[in-house]
């Protein structure tokens, strides 16, 4: 078990990167705490696989260092790092029984047979396979095989981290949920450090203590699911996480006054002078729809009732606005006004969150 | 990633030398005169000569052998593919009466020793007047090439999802148009590999081609094995003739080189 630390780490697949765009992974400093569950979240091609391969030792980063605790492992190979990995599709040894599959990493390390037997049985019980220990692995379903791969990772007690590379891709939707819950339970039971790579926000948010959001080779935010939701550090986090994502409007900000086209709003916070591309962001959850006056007049295009709440797709001139309305509120023709929850309005400069000046402006 | 590779280039090197050395020796000999072949012993021709090749290209007794062999090989490849394609499609897509037995019976023909069929083929083709024609050899070789083609193509076709057929029919394609325009391009590498195998087994076969021809359609193999003149063997010409039989093989491999790895999986990995 160890803490994983990235120090000024960067990677480019080109031998002589010239611009930032040549980097698959731009410079990052990051710390994965021992025993925590992390998710690496981002769209495909954002650099999360590169990052994972650097941790597992398949790739040597072109710049910077990686430490396990205080040991520099930048150039150490996979075996020396003592990590386990679960791949996108199940990797099991088809000709072996489930028991032999689970015992394989231990037997290769020359562990004591009675210890192996005991350990394999413990793990088998945790992944719910104690009944089929002596079945051949080849005939099992994809999710059972994926559980075996996971079990093979956890069977070693001293493993530094378990890397999960989109492990639920080939799993049927109705089993996905079950497997995810089980994964979470296993993490709590054995408290290995787990790093779960995914492009699915639900998987990331339900599994992880901390989510590392990546886009275009940059780590845009590291935080708990709650932090990501409540205070996105980047417009990307805003619209990538949440369903639907954050509303973002082109805006002008002077002090505590924001101009959205023909509408002026007074914020409860003041900002420094901003340059570049300025956007105002607010999550659909923090916009209120009403039939009386509000901050903005809108036309409703469409209402999607998804059961536990309604999503209203609306329009003001050419601004598209998504609003989430609780299930019990009836939407009528007269509901043509919206008002913003000022505490949850954020201002972004060239995509990045701008902190307000100290103190509230009255 | 391959920091700790178990692959050894030395093994490959030795194997390739093992494969190439006998061929090189034949090549070396083909550029020597008979006097030099029998008189001195050297890794390179002392007196480089193309005389042996000139002999082959100017003597119809020799060069017609190549033309004859190429002719029946090409006819065989065309026949084999033409009949095997629809049959393989049927086996890969449909269940019909006796399909399994038929498929198995086809495969058993691949196991038939040509020596068993040499005599009856001789009589059969003589009685219908095909003896000593390209057609006799081409048809005889379908005995083992057609079952093999059906089997290889069936493997590749099974890998093509059935939904593609259904979509094409819904889009208004006729069976023949679908087969030609959509299906055949999808299994192009399979067809290439099948043609490769048909070519190979027909080109390399000696027994049937020698038994079924005498003068007009005599194959190069038969020419080579019957060239033992009274003055003894003309080693130089024999070597040159051997080298020339390898050339079509090299050309064929060169054209399919990018499909070899995938193709040899025969659609069954």
């Amino acid at each position: 078990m160890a803490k994983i630390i990235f120090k000024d780490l960067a990677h480019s697949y080109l031998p002589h990167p010239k611009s930032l765009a040549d980097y698959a992974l731009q410079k990052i400093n990051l710390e994965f705490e021992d025993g925590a569950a992390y998710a690496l979240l981002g769209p495909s091609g954002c650099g999360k696989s590169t990052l994972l391969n650097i941790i597992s030792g398949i790739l040597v980063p072109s710049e910077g260092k990686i430490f396990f605790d205080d040991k520099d492992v930048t150039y150490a190979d996979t075996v020396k790092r003592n990590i386990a990995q679960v791949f996108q599709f199940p990797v099991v040894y088809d000709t072996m029984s489930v028991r032999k599959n689970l015992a394989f990493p231990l037997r290769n390390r020359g562990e004591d047979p009675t210890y192996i037997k005991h350990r394999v049985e413990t793990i088998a019980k945790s992944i719910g396979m104690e009944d089929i220990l002596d079945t051949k692995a080849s005939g099992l379903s994809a999710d059972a095989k994926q559980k075996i791969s996971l079990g093979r990772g956890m069977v070693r007690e001293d493993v530094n981290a378990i890397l999960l590379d989109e492990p639920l891709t080939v799993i049927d939707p109705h089993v996905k949920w079950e497997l995810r819950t089980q994964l979470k339970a296993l993490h709590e039971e054995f408290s290995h450090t787990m790093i779960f790579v995914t492009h699915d926000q639900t998987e990331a948010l339900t599994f992880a203590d901390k989510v590392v959001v990546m886009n275009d080779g940059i780590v845009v935010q590291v935080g708990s699911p709650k932090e990501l939701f409540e205070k996105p550090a980047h417009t990307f986090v805003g619209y990538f996480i949440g369903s639907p994502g954050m509303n973002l409007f082109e805006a002008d900000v002077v002090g505590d006054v924001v101009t959205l086209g023909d509408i002026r709003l007074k914020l409860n916070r003041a900002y420094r002078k901003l340059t570049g591309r300025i956007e105002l962001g607010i999550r659909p959850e923090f916009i209120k729809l009403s039939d009386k006056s509000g901050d903005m007049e809108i036309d409703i295009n469409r209402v999607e009732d998804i059961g536990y709440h309604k999503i209203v797709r609306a329009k003001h001139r050419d601004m598209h606005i998504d609003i989430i309305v609780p299930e019990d509120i009836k939407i009528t023709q007269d509901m043509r006004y919206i008002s913003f929850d000022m505490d949850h309005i954020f201002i972004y400069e060239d995509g990045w969150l701008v902190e307000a000046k100290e103190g509230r402006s009255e | 990633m391959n920091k700790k590779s178990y692959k050894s280039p030395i093994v490959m090197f030795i194997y390739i030398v093992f494969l190439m050395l006998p061929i090189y020796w034949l090549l070396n000999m083909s550029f020597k005169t008979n006097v030099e072949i029998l008189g001195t012993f050297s890794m390179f021709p002392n007196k480089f000569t193309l005389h042996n090749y000139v002999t082959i290209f100017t003597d119809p007794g020799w060069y017609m052998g190549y033309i004859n062999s190429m002719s029946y090989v090409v006819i065989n490849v065309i026949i084999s593919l033409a009949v095997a394609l629809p049959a393989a499609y049927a086996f890969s897509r449909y269940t019909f009466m006796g399909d399994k037995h038929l498929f198995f019976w086809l495969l058993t023909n691949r196991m038939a020793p040509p020596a068993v069929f040499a005599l009856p083929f001789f009589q059969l083709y003589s009685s219908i007047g095909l003896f000593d024609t390209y057609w006799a050899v081409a048809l005889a070789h379908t005995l083992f090439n057609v079952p093999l083609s059906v089997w290889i193509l069936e493997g590749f076709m099974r890998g093509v999802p059935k939904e593609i057929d259904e979509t094409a029919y819904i889009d208004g394609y006729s069976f023949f148009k679908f087969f030609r325009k959509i299906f055949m391009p999808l299994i192009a590498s399979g067809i290439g590999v099948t043609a490769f195998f048909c070519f190979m087994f027909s080109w390399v076969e000696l027994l049937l081609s020698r038994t079924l021809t005498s003068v007009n359609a005599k194959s190069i193999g038969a020419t080579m094995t019957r060239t033992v003149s009274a003055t003894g063997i003309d080693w130089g010409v024999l070597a040159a003739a051997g080298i020339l039989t390898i050339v079509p093989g090299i050309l064929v491999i060169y054209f399919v080189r990018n499909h070899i790895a995938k193709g040899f999986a025969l659609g069954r990995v």
Partner: protein
Amino acid sequence: MNKTVNQKAWFLVLPVFLLVAFSAVIPLMTVINYSVQDTFGNNVFSWVGLDWFEEIIHSQRMHESLGRQAMLTTIILLIEVPFGIFIALNMPKKGFWASFCLVVIALPLLIPWNVVGTIWQIFGRKDIGLLGHTLASMGIEYNYAQDVLSAWITIVVMDVWHWTSLIVLLCYAGLQSIPDAYYQAAKIDQASRWSVFRYIELPKMSGVLLIAILLRFMDSFMIYSEPFVLTGGGPGNSTTFLSIDLVNMALGQFDLGPASAYSLMYFLVVLLVSWVFFTVMTSIDKKGAV
């Protein structure tokens, strides 16, 4: 894949059926016809029942040929299969060298079989061949035309030279289909080189390997041209394998009756052994292809 029932599919297989019936059934009928009759020339035949079969079954000649054939095929398979796998494991995975090796390795497969015989006939000769000359200058007794052991060694080496590539290419195709993740997982599990082979590579190769072994069995059991050119079946009868023996009997001596009985039994042996091979090997590994 779920196949639909469609009797019209028969029209698609009809050309194959007719063609193969023409090239297989008619000749086979001829053979069966001859095998139960005797002739004294001039197309006068008389029914002899199973006499020829009885004669062939008890003939010393067939027993010896069959014995030689079985020995050759066994030796060849025992050498070529492990050797082919070994070479396949050492093949470069991609890039220029991979294509280069593939092309060079495939070459012996496309050389006409009689030329293969010629190549080795020349290569092994003491006076003009590199191998024969080298061995002679090292003082090793080697003469494939007169010495039985030399003849056998030459034929085995020739066959290894000729056919190992087929096994290499098939196994290589199987190995190429293994995703990198398997090797990574094995590395993480600290599997030894042997374990990687035993538990990852071999299972993935088993399908194509089965095909390779079957093909090698069948073709080596029918071997004709190469030994015919190289040794002509000699010295003595020491390299007279089944096909050479049969051709001598049928086309050389024109003993139609016994040759036909011989043919049928030969064919049956090939079918039977292929079937046994296939059944045994698929039951060893249920995941085998086909």
